[in-house]
């Protein structure tokens, strides 16, 4: 297992390198460059000002020179400065990541906490009222767009009922400590609700489907036939097997936690990494886009590895050597 892990991690090195080349080329291939938007609608900007800016940013260097410059700095851990925010990229990404995690992690946990029991119950009581209700909400959750659902919640809870703030991050002037924490939670409720509702829907369906498949297997019938208690049949025999595909789904959801949620973060004015990424791409802030995307790619690779390892732990038939 250790050798397997070492081999997989080593394989990631050339892969990450390749990804960085592709990312760089894709970002550079996008039409226009960061100085373009300067010109838009501003009659005072002169052509020579733009030329000077291009020189200062090194935009006129050949592609490979620009890439090597970036790579040389990146291996030292220096990802440059954000052109939009004027701060080091790593500081910016780290701060936004913390903000995103404070939304995505609670919503993931909430989603799992609801989806697993509901999915299992639905499967065991197929076509019951609860199953229908769960299926309805699951389809609703899968179908509604995040931004629409977000606006709906804002309208209901912020505009009409005024229970919660309509987006934002904190109330200015709230003293630090408990009041600030409580204040932050008030701002988190709606976006967490939107995010968890959306992933809850899919997770419920996966759990239900996986569980349904397992409980029809012969070994479950055998377990029941040999007189085991129903709770033991479900938890020991059915659930453990049903979990195998579900764990993969969970593991693959992990990079998503770090990717943030661009739409939800935008609707709720939450300064997360998803929104940052969108702003960076639209605003031509290459240093930020490149660093954030590379970081997310590494997370996807790690999550895949994690899923494979989890397989082995759950399924005794799978062994890595």
């Amino acid at each position, binding site marked *: 297992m250790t050798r397997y892990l070492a081999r997989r991690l080593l394989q990631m090195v050339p892969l990450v390198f390749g990804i960085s080349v592709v990312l760089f080329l894709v970002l550079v291939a*996008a*039409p*226009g460059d*960061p100085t*373009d*938007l*300067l010109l*838009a*609608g*501003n*009659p*005072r*900007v*002169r*052509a020579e*000002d733009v030329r000077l*800016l291009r020189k*200062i*940013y090194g935009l006129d260097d050949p592609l490979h020179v620009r890439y090597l410059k970036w790579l040389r700095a990146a291996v030292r851990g220096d990802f440059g*400065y954000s*052109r*939009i*925010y*004027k*701060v080091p990229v790593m500081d*910016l990404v780290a701060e*936004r990541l913390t*903000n995103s995690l404070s939304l995505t992690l609670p919503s993931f946990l909430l989603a799992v906490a609801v989806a697993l029991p509901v999915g299992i119950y639905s499967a065991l009581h197929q076509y019951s009222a609860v199953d*229908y209700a769960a*299926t*309805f909400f699951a*389809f*609703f959750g899968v179908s509604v767009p995040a*931004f629409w659902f977000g*606006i*709906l919640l*804002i*309208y*209901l809870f*912020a*505009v*009409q*009922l*005024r229970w919660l*703030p*309509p*987006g*934002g*991050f*904190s*109330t*200015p*002037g709230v003293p630090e400590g408990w009041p600030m924490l409580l204040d932050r939670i008030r701002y988190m409720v709606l976006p967490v609700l939107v995010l968890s509702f959306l992933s809850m829907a899919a997770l419920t369906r996966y759990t239900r489907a996986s569980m349904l498949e397992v409980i029809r297997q012969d070994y479950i019938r055998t377990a029941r036939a040999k007189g085991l208690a129903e709770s033991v049949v479900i938890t020991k025999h059915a659930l453990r097997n049903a979990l195998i595909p579900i764990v993969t789904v969970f593991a693959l959801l992990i990079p998503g936690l770090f990717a943030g949620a661009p739409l939800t973060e*935008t*609707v*709720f*004015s939450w*300064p997360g990494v998803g*929104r*940052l990424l969108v702003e960076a791409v639209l605003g031509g802030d290459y240093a930020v886009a490149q660093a954030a995307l590379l970081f997310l790619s590494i997370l996807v690779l790690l999550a895949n590895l994690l899923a494979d390892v989890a397989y082995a732990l759950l399924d005794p038939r799978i062994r890595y050597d």
Partner: protein
Amino acid sequence: MRNGGRILTVGMLLVLPGLALAAPAVRPAVAPDTVVVGTQQEPANIGILFCDGCTMFVGTMIATPLFVPVVELTDEWKWQPVAVEKLPNLKDGDWKLLPGGKMEVTWRLRRGLRWQDGRPLTAEDFIFAWRVNVNPRFPSAGRDVSERVENIRAPDPYTLVVQWKKKYAFANLTVNGVGYLPRHLLAGAYQRDPSKLPQNPWGTSEQTAGTGPYRIVEWRKGSSITLERWDRFPYEAVGGSWRARAQVRRLVFRFVPDTNTQVANVLAGTVDVFDETAIPFVQGLELEKRLQREGRLGQEWVLRAEPGLIWEHVDLNVDNFHLRDKRVRQALVYGINRELIVQQLFEGKQPVSHGPFPPKHYGYNPNVKKYPYDPARARQLLAEAGYRPGPDGVLVKDGQRLSLTFMTTAGNRTREAVQQIVQQQLREIGVEIRIQNQPARVYFGETLPSRKFDMAMYAWVFNPISDCEGIFTGDTLPPQGQNYTGWKNEEATRLCHAVPEELDEAQRARMLRRFQQIYAEEMPVIPLYFRADYVGWKALLRNLRPTGADSPITWNVTNWAWAR
């Protein structure tokens, strides 16, 4: 089950509007000593106003309470001295013409102004800012005015003598084309690397010491900036509206990127003010109607949409086979019912324009050739130009169909709506319009500078002293300038280059009026309308006076006050 779902969803939607339980938002959003301003974008840098890529407008709005201005533009478009004793003028002799077209302008700074770290604000800070801005290694996006200055001297810490290389009409409104910077804080960093100056903590963090009646206390990147009243500000030492002691203790600028969420913030009362960038015009119109319907307009919220200096228009590429003929260009303008467009889309609140300058501009000419909707006249002009109907109804000349591509920024709903009306109306005079839109970056970055368009809709953002040099002069086609239409007229070019050097305002206005006459006759554009942007504030908040010009809503922030 499917039906059940549908009924449930419809039911939910029906119940929602009925839930208006809460009291109206007539209170301050946070506290009676705080004003929360909702805006769309976060500025990159609030210290160096002319840095690259600064979301300039928002930057100025937040910087204004932090930095006492040299002069201010009031809501009546009058210039008043603030940090200086007076505006120089030719009569008093502090603005002198020198041989060879050079000039010398003398400014006297008011005494008693300080940086918030205690150091006095002196002439050296102006000289330093100017040196920075003309340094080619500093990423400035606006050095055109600064480069007209030859040298600046400071005979004493409160006197500035500015030598201009050539005449500049507005040398009494700006000391050096850039303002001032804290030399004592930035000189070291500047020496090390001028290109990194916009990344200095001064300007990008809470460490931005200012000179104004407010100081920055918190900057949450991506969320908000909080300013607090600086009680050591020398009110008695300044002029203009800045003499009034600030009443609001705390100002919060909250960044709300999504415009629907911004509207929700207004309806819920969680912002007290929103600026020009916060809510697009069409959504503002809907918001206004809704507040009216609910009886909240005027009671709770005051909304204003002043047509300003943003000119929406369609550039016509005069190098196009069809568009190089003046008669075709004129026919296009006659063929579009612009009055109908502004009535249908904006309820008339964004007025039709007949040229680049709005009526409030000092050089505005009301007596230019106008092009009311007249399809018959349009057809006649096209016939005179040699066009005959082709087999599919589209006009043809020399075997070429009168078919034009019409571009604008993709995803801009208002512009797309205008395009469709234009397309339909021009079809009736036999002109085929092919709509082909692009993302803003491609459009402004490649298409316009390379002039690869027939018709291109966008806006120019002017200010009260804007003139016609650079975009209407025949020797400033890209890459030399931003004359995207490619229109070249000798007299207009001469006039437009001369305007910034004419010191007599009346004469300058005459030149601009003549330019507008030529422009209206030649019509290298389709003038559409002047944009109005909504600004709003809670009715309880007093003394907000939007200027409709490029100065931000915070220009008189020390006058703002909550009604008791």
